């Protein structure tokens, strides 16, 4: 059986400068599979500059990988025929961060729904199109009568973002890549959008890659998580394992830095880590996190750590765990929980209920 979407040893390097050419490894050797049979929500978490958005753009086919391959239904995305590429573009839908910039202010919001419907020939007739659009709006909790016919500025940020979720859903994709979909939406409305994303998985069987810097929302809606630091996957696995019991010192730092909405929970952990991640140079060899790591010891400077499989549903790229076997081919699939269940029971298991 061919998988829906695979990344095999995908890297992306950006180069800049003419005289002193600088190379930035935005995504460093990622291997994983997104499966159609067992839809799941995968969170990709990291700070700015971690490469999480680049990973999203690679999945969407907006940029080609520098090395490795993105494989769609058994075929490299580079070699798709026109027809195949069309299906690929329909089956993987993006949702972007800024619900304002995604709209043309001169068109009514209907525009973002009718144009893709026409382009991908979703229906035979106009009535059919309208019905599909209303259905999609319903799904995200918007009243079609109150939404259609309005201009983007007449909707709130939360509503605009929900129209974008409806647009993605309208095309009956198999995968939605949502890049920070709620970071510009107010707290009281955030939940509605996250809830509609979760419903997509549960009711329509659509997988979701949820790109975020916010581990809290990732914990709430995702099944699995992949934590990135400077382009590399530092830890991956089920959200329960990775967020409740992080093993990589970087994940530990991220989790302890989240201010909890409870004054009695202390903020930050012992062993304060210095250094400003945004201005840190990445060490040429060894672990990328070594200069900020409180647990760094001598092997860390020598070579890059592999992802070690230290728990059935978690792997961490840290030499503290090198007694455990390295992930075979650095393939992340084995630590992701939905895949585990589906292999065990035979592929038709409902994703883990939250």
């Amino acid at each position, binding site marked *: 059986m061919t998988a829906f979407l695979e990344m095999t040893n995908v890297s992306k390097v950006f180069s800049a400068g003419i005289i002193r050419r600088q190379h930035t490894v935005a995504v460093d050797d990622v291997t994983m599979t997104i499966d159609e049979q067992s839809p799941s929500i995968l969170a990709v978490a990291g*700070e*700015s500059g971690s490469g999480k958005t680049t990973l999203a753009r690679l999945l969407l086919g907006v940029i080609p990988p520098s090395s490795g391959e993105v494989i769609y239904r058994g075929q490299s995305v580079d070699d798709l025929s026109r027809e195949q590429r069309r299906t690929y573009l329909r089956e993987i839908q993006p949702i972007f961060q800024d619900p304002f910039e995604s709209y043309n202010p001169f068109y009514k919001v209907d525009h973002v729904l009718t144009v893709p419907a026409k382009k991908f020939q979703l229906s035979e007739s106009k009535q059919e199109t309208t019905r599909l659009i209303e259905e999609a709006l319903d799904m995200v909790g918007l009243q079609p009568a109150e939404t259609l016919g309005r201009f983007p500025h007449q909707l*709130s*940020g*939360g*509503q605009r973002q929900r129209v974008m979720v409806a647009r993605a859903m309208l095309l009956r994709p198999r995968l939605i890549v949502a890049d920070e979909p709620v970071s510009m939406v*107010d*707290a*009281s*409305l*955030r*939940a*509605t959008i*996250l*809830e509609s994303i979760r419903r997509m998985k549960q009711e329509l069987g659509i997988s979701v890659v949820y790109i975020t*810097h916010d*581990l*809290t*929302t990732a*914990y*709430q*809606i995702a099944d699995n998580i992949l934590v990135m630091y400077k382009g590399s996957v530092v830890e991956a696995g089920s959200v329960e394992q990775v*967020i*409740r019991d992080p093993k990589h010192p970087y994940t530990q*730092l*991220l*989790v302890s*830095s*989240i*201010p*909890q*909405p*409870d*004054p*009695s929970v202390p*903020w*930050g952990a012992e062993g304060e*880590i210095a250094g*400003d*991640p*945004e*201005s840190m140079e990445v060490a040429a060899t060894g672990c990328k996190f070594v200069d900020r790591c409180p647990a760094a010891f001598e092997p860390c400077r020598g070579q890059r750590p592999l992802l070690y499989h230290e728990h059935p549903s978690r792997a961490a790229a840290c030499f503290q765990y090198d007694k455990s076997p390295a992930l075979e081919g650095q393939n992340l699939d084995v630590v992701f929980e939905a895949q585990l269940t589906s292999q065990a029971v035979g592929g038709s298991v409902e994703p883990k209920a*939250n």
Partner: protein
Amino acid sequence: MTVNDLRVYYDTPAGTVKAVDGVSFDLRPGERLGLVGESGSGKSTMALALMRMHKPPARIAGGEVLLDGVGDVMKLDDDALRRIRLDRLALVPQGAMNSLNPVMRVRDQLADGIRTHEPGDDRDALAARIRAQLARVGLDADVGGKFPHELSGGMKQRVAIAIGTSLSPSVIIADEPTSALDVVVQRQVMETLRSVQEEIGASVLIVGHDMGLMAQIADRMGVMYAGKLVELAPVHDLFTNPQHPYTRLLIESVPTLMAKRALASIPGVPPTLINVPPGCPFHPRCPSAFEPCDSEVPLPTAQNGRVVSCHLYPEEAA
């Protein structure tokens, strides 16, 4: 600092927008007061208006801001206002990347304020002050020679804190000081703000939307909704026992790492401030709304060290 019945309105062709509509509170010496609200609740407008830095079409429609030893900031003439800004009342702005001058070195931007307010330092003394100020916010002295674009977001925000606190003001207004930063850097910057504030003994008003951040940093916390302060309480009381239904729903809508649960949201959408519902502005979304809520505006009532504006809490010990 004491704020009494402050009103800031925007005159727009479509009508008057009451961005801040009768807000009163006091900022105690040395305390950190957090002020949360969603976008459009008027929190940022108020932060700027406290320093009279609001821009037209916003205008002060009433109220007073009493600053110890200065009097009513709203009544000062331009010259007096210029003298107290930075010196007594300083702003740490939102998104320091856009508030620093891109073509001035950091040390010149720091020197600018010091020289204007406290002329008389010779070059060496000024340079020493700038170095000390940078050290205070955890920056190396060589940052002084850099331009803003050479700095990371966290460093720029530290520079903004260094400028805002350079004359040891008694009141610091921090408008979403870390909203553009990653969590790790956010914590570092917030710790910096806290340590500088404690060192100079200033009071700070932190405006933001992140409930988690406020829980960690504030002593007392106010919640704004549709231009009104609906609740003000010590931070611990506010989180353990919120009184106003909006506060309670807002706290419930914040996801935590403690437990997975169905994500709660507040039904409905915040009102546009041009067309605020009559009575309590929250009543169309409020699960506890009852008969007076849609006609009478609830007045703030004081109880046990907190203030709530809700008909559920009639004048107990007002």
